[in-house]
Every structure is written in C-alpha cells, then in structure tokens.
C-alpha cells in the first residue's frame, strides 16, 4: 500500500483557503471561491459555499466545510478536483476522509470519485458517490471511503465530496492512495461489452 503525495490534507486546504481571505459561510453574501486546486461543481453549486472551519475539525487546525446556503435546493453542490489518470492506470485507488454531517430530512452527502475514459463527451468508466451508503442526519466524525479500479484506458480521475438538497458537512484528512486488491472496490468498473447482457434478469455476477 502506497500513499501518494496527493494527500489533500486539511493543512494545505486550510492554507489555500486562508490565502483567499475567505469569510465564514454565514457572513458571505455569495459563495466564496473554492480553495486552490478545487472547483465547485453540481447542478446547484450556486447555492453552496465551501469554507475552512477552525472550530469543527477532526484533526489538525481546520476542516473543509461544504454547506448549503438555503434550507433546501432542487439539486446538489460539490467540491471537486480533476487529475490526470496516467500515474494511476492499472491501480486500485481509494479516496477516504473523516466526515461529519448535519443533514436534514431528505438531505444526504458523500465522498465521490469518477474515472473517465477517452472521448469528447462523458465516458464514465467507474463512478461512486456513496449514493447507496449515504451520509444522512446528524452524524459524528466517521471515516468514509470510495474505492475504484482505474483501467488502462482511463484519461482522468475526478473526485471530491457532495451534498444533495441541503445541509452541511465537514471533511477532514482526505487521502487519495493506492490500495491492494484485498481491499474491495465500492463500485465496479464498466466493462466494454459488445452485446447487451442479462436481458432476462436471471443472470448472476461473474
């Protein structure tokens, strides 16, 4: 198991954010700029803000705080970054972090990772956003993870965290690292099939 330097520790997240002179989420009339290296995404990212929180944190001086600025929105907000897949091809990669949530009824959050293949438009080879193991309600710090295989044809990897419909999360000690094949993936990588499969719904998982 090998940890890459791309360990997005809170420290540099915090430094990046501090250098922008980010105000608190509550005080900011408009969502502040995301920290360096990160971009806001999501179909309602206009309603979300990301700031450094020095009070609510798991380890180190601060956590990243992604918060919906309205009671409820019809969509989601995400913090993301995209990297070249070259160094990770053929590897099993894990994104993990400590996450604490304050999420209302119908709201949920997750870490997410997506592996893209070649092509002008979206060609998703693998994707997991924890939709099937959502972070919900009021939750204390817990370690969450997303594990995906990066196939040889992968072009880029996008990852981050998302909040759906409303609420807020704190994320601390993000790590992006290679893991062994003893660690199960949390979602399968897309097979390039040439025929449809399991049309009678009787088929099993090979």
């Amino acid at each position, binding site marked *: 198991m090998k940890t890459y330097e791309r360990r997005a520790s809170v420290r540099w997240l915090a430094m990046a954010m501090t250098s922008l002179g980010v105000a608190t989420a509550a005080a900011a009339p408009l969502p502040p700029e995301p920290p360096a290296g990160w971009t806001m995404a999501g179909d309602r990212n206009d309603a979300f803000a990301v700031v450094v929180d020095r009070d609510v944190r798991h380890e180190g001086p601060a956590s990243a705080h992604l918060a919906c600025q309205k009671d409820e929105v019809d969509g989601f907000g995400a913090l993301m970054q995209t990297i070249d897949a070259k160094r990770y091809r053929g590897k099993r990669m894990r994104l993990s972090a400590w996450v604490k949530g304050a999420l209302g009824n119908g709201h949920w959050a997750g870490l997410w990772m997506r592996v893209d293949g070649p092509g002008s*438009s979206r060609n998703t080879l693998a994707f997991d956003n924890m*939709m099937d193991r959502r972070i919900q309600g009021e939750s204390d710090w817990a370690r969450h993870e997303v594990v995906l295989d990066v196939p040889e044809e992968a072009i880029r990897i996008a990852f981050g965290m998302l909040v*759906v419909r409303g609420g807020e999360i704190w994320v601390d000690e993000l790590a992006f690292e290679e893991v062994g094949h003893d660690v199960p993936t949390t979602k399968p990588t897309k097979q390039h*099939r040439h025929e449809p*499969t*399991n049309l009678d*719904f*009787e088929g*099993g998982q090979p």
Partner: protein
Amino acid sequence: MKRSMTLLSLLLVACAPEGKHDAEDPPADGAPLEAPAVEAETDPSVVPPKAGELPHGWQLAGMAADEYEATTDADVVHQGRFSARLRATVDKPRAFGTMSQFFEADRYRGSRIRLRGFVKAEGVANWAGMWMRVDEGGEPVVLDNMQRRPLTGDVEWKEVSIVLDVAKQADQIGFGILLDGPGTVWIDGLVLEKVDLTVPTTSLGSKEHPLPEEPANLTFVE
C-alpha cells in the same frame, strides 16, 4: 400529464455531470437469498442473482436516480425466476429515474435494430417507458423513450418495442426502462435483434432531423 420535450432532452444527457446522476447500484435491502440461477449451478464462480439487488449488468441512472430503486423481483415476473423492477422511493421525485445499460455499437452498425420486451406498470402517476438510444461521437443521435405512447396508471404485462437505425459511425447503444414520477414499473424478457427495413422505426427524431414527423396534441387534451 407532463410529457414535455424537456424530458427527452434530459434523457439524452442521461450520462450526467459529476455527482449523483450517473450513479450505479441502488441500496440493497437485505432481501433473503433466492435459489441459485441455472448459471450458478454450472459455473461456481458466478454469484447468483438475489431478489432485491440491482440486476447484474444494469445501472440506476437519471436526473433523480437517488429517488428511485431498481432491483430484481422474484414475485412479479413475466417469465423465468426474475423480472426487474423500477420504482420511486419518494412521494414526489424531482425528475426521472432509469435502469439502463450501454454496449458498443460495432456489431450493429448499419443495421436496423429492435428492442422488445414485456412491461407492467402499477400506480404510475405521470409516465414511464422502455427506451433505446444510439450515440455517435459520444452524443445521442436517435432515441425513442415511448414518450408518445407512455405507460400510465396500471398496465398489465404487455409487449412493447423500440426500433432504431444504427448509423455506420455509431459508437454505443443504450437502453432501459424509465419512470418519471411516483409508481412502479417492471420489465422482463427483453430481446434485441436486427430487423429488416420493412419494420418502421419508432424514433422520436434525430440530431439531423430533430423535428417530429407529425403534429401532436392539436386538441390540447393531452
């Protein structure tokens, strides 16, 4: 009934942005283990399907995928041991959900293809349909989602079909079942086959010919 072309355009971008839209695998509900399927008896490496799990090879997608679940169903079947069931898990989903799969178009290029299968609906308050689309250069170019002959309310098992031409430059074909709004739909016994040109296509339009071939709803009763 909300049968706007907006939904068509939404479906056309079903491989959606980062986030929840193109997520796979709905929550497993811990349903009891079913008897192994035939494949499992002959090949011990195959994990047999279980009722309540996303069918192997399929994914849950759509603009509001997290408000739907797609699972195998051992109780309501048209043939064999299992059907697939797609249902809304909230009272008022904010958009549609679909159970779908994609495959490379290479073996079907230049052919007219038909997807047929049996569908059943229960309590579909808005609409549902089986669908198929053909992509070129990563973009959808032809599609039929049964928007003009939607499944609504309660519908007993019936066979439906979609017929589309696969262009020489097509790169992938996607198909599945979609549900927009509350309710439940089942699908079973799908067949994909090449057909000859005497079978008319059911395409709702294409990128080159985006306009419908006939006027619609001239009496404003839809």
